């Protein structure tokens, strides 16, 4: 009973916060399966992601977290099943409104500023509009003094900040993040989390994979826990960390070995 | 900075391309002569052509290949004038309509050169058939052009006259290089083989080693050069007027005298004989 009330509170609260709504949501998947040689690596019967606070995907190594993220983003094609965005199948327009940040940033062999400029350019933004936006995002990511520097000479934390700023510069409705702070120091991690929180507050739906329960606690509105390609539970974050409903999540959070 | 440097490189490339494209000036008045390596390697053409250009303003561009290839190139219409040394093949070329008319220009002679130790014992001979027979009998190495050139054709005629079947010796003591006169001389000198060459190429050749002329002075080793205008009725692109001017000059008094004047180390390499053979 308590749990149900809490869930209702959560939905109400986030619906207020993101009152304008997100034209791409809800994101729904059904019968989503990705198999290699007949072995299902992702097997999601039903998934429904609503507007609101960040949705964080957790689970042990090899559970299929990154694959699920790539399936949703459209980087890989499911073996079967469907994904719809606000009721519509993925199309050019939907692809256009998403961005993704990878665990290891892929930076172009150009300057820091040119990396952001490139993302805006292929997004179809005119040259005159690009210039101020590049400036804005350099500022936000605290990269302004490094604007002319070759992007690949940045430190790991700076690279990931650039990668995130580049993804956010196109103002996506949905931002996927695949363990963006996996190999970063605390200071860099904090800078990245601040950028993510800001984006979320501005209405960008965050869907993020993380390994780190602390990060999930700090950012998540809800947690999806997956184990062996299947969703074990999908719960509001507060509930998840207090009393996870699935045995797998309990084992994971208590630091036990999850097999 | 880096970007600018790369752009500079690209621009330089493009500029070069442009330069080359404009380099071929359509206003240039020139003819193409398909000729043989002997006339070029000896330096004869380098001597004659500036004189001709001075007088007429016509530039002569020489493609120097073997006589066989020169004739084939001319049969494709790739040249205005043919200047070669294989009379039967030249007459066939005219008879088949590829050329207009053949004129004798000059002659020199072939010689057989060999190493100082003279393994076949032919040095000093002036009987080429006997010398070739001796070379075959002693199985002394002999380097042949083997490229269907005028020299090669002449050499084959001489073997035939000596009654020797060189085909059976090919790869053994008879070695066909399949290349030009100079390359064959280089190869032959390297392997200690006898070589038949035109005298002009030999005199001007720079890598003689211990080689000397072994056989010379036989009438059978006479080497006649002829000149032919490629038939403009077959190939409209043939520059008939300028080609005729060149041929006329070459077999006329001025050209003939210039040929006789061309000497290396005081030796005359070619002997003009245009009036003798022409009707």
């Amino acid at each position, binding site marked *: 009973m308590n749990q149900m009330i809490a869930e209702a509170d959560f939905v109400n609260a986030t619906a207020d916060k993101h009152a304008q709504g997100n034209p791409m949501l809800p994101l729904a998947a059904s019968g989503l399966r990705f198999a290699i040689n007949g072995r299902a690596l992702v097997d999601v019967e039903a998934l429904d992601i609503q507007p609101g606070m960040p949705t964080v995907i957790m689970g042990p190594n090899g559970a299929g977290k990154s694959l699920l993220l790539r399936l949703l983003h459209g980087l890989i094609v499911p073996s079967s099943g469907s994904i719809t965005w606000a009721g519509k199948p993925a199309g050019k327009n939907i692809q256009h409104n998403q961005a993704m940040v990878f665990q290891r940033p892929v930076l172009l062999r*150009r300057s820091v500023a040119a990396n952001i400029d490139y993302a805006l350019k292929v997004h179809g933004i005119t040259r005159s509009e690009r210039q101020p936006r590049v400036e804005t995002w350099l500022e936000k990511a605290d990269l302004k003094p490094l604007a002319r520097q070759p992007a690949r000479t940045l430190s790991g934390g700076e690279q990931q900040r650039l990668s995130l700023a580049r993804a956010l510069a196109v103002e996506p409705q949905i931002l996927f993040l695949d363990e963006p702070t996996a190999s970063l120091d605390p200071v860099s991690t904090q800078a990245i989390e601040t950028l993510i929180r800001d984006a979320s507050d501005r209405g960008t739906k965050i869907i993020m994979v993380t390994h780190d329960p602390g990060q999930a606690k700090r950012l998540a509105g809800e947690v999806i826990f997956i184990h062996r390609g299947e969703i074990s539970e999908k719960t509001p974050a507060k509930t998840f960390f207090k009393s996870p409903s699935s045995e797998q999540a309990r084992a994971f959070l208590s630091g036990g070995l999850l097999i | 900075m880096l970007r600018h440097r790369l752009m500079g490189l690209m621009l330089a490339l493009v500029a070069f391309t442009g330069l*080359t494209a404009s380099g071929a000036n359509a206003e240039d008045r020139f003819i*193409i002569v398909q000729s043989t390596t002997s006339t070029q390697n000896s330096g004869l053409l380098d001597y004659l052509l500036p004189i001709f250009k001075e007088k007429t303003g016509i530039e002569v561009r020489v*493609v120097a290949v073997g006589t066989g290839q020169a004739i084939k190139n001319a049969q494709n219409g790739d040249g205005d004038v043919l200047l070669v040394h294989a009379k039967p093949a030249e007459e066939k070329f005219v008879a088949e309509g590829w050329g207009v008319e053949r004129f004798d220009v000059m002659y020199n002679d072939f010689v057989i050169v060999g190493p100082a130790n003279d393994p076949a014992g032919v040095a000093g001979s002036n009987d080429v058939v006997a010398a070739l027979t001796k070379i075959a009998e002693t199985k002394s190495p002999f380097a042949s052009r083997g490229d269907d050139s005028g020299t090669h054709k002449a050499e084959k005629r001489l073997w035939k006259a000596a009654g020797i079947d060189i085909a059976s010796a090919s790869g053994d003591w008879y070695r066909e290089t399949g290349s030009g006169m100079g390359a064959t001389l*280089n190869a032959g000198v390297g392997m200690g083989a006898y070589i038949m060459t035109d005298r002009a190429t030999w005199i*001007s050749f720079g890598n*003689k080693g211990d080689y000397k002329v072994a056989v010379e002075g036989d009438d059978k080793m006479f080497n006649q050069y002829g000149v032919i205008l490629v038939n403009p009725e077959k190939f409209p692109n043939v520059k008939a007027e300028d080609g005729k001017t060149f041929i006329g000059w070459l077999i006329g008094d001025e050209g003939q005298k210039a040929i006789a004047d061309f000497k290396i180390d005081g030796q005359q390499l070619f002997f003009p004989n245009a009036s003798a053979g022409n009707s």
Partner: protein
Amino acid sequence: MHNFASSFIYAAQLLLSGDPELWAIVLLSLKVSLSAVGIAALIGMPLGAALAVARFPGRGAAVILVNSLMGLPPVVVGLLVYLLLSNAGPLGVLQLLYTPGAMIFAQVVLVTPIIAALTRQVIEDLDSEYSEQLRSFGVSRLKSVPTLLWDARYSLLTALLAGFGRAVAEVGAVIIVGGNINHVTRVMTTTIALETSKGNLSLALALGFILIGIAIAVNAALGMLKSTAARSAYA
């Protein structure tokens, strides 16, 4: 007999003497080969990059074909281009035979597969790094070609160098289609062949040294450019 040191000194003397004939030959060599490499790059780089990123049936066969064409014998290319450009051939009307244009034509044929094959390799490597990110940006495989080419620009210098090395050093093709005509189509390699056939071996060797010197100079220039690029992690 022929001693390398004396030929080397001869080469230096030739260069220093400022002999206009020699310089004209060196310049023509550079003009022809650089033009050929420039044109071949314009064709071969997009072709190689497209081959690297495109997915179509028969792609494996196409890759093998391009790789094999890297080893095209120059003399065969010379013959093919001669037959094309000959007055009896389909492109005879262009009147290109025995001009520098014909030599560029032949070298483009010779060099394009080299640049295309090396470009494919370089771009395939880069694409394996970039492809997810570019797909995420919404850039399709074929549309990613210009991006990949630009970002691989310094690695691609190696392809240009390989092409230039091949072009400037070959004699088989240019001697057939150019005819080695004095002051018109005579380049370094055909001059070396000619001087060798005249038995002027020291002169030929000296010219060879100059040719090697040109190759070293070009390589060094691009090598410097590449090392600058490496410091920026662009290479």
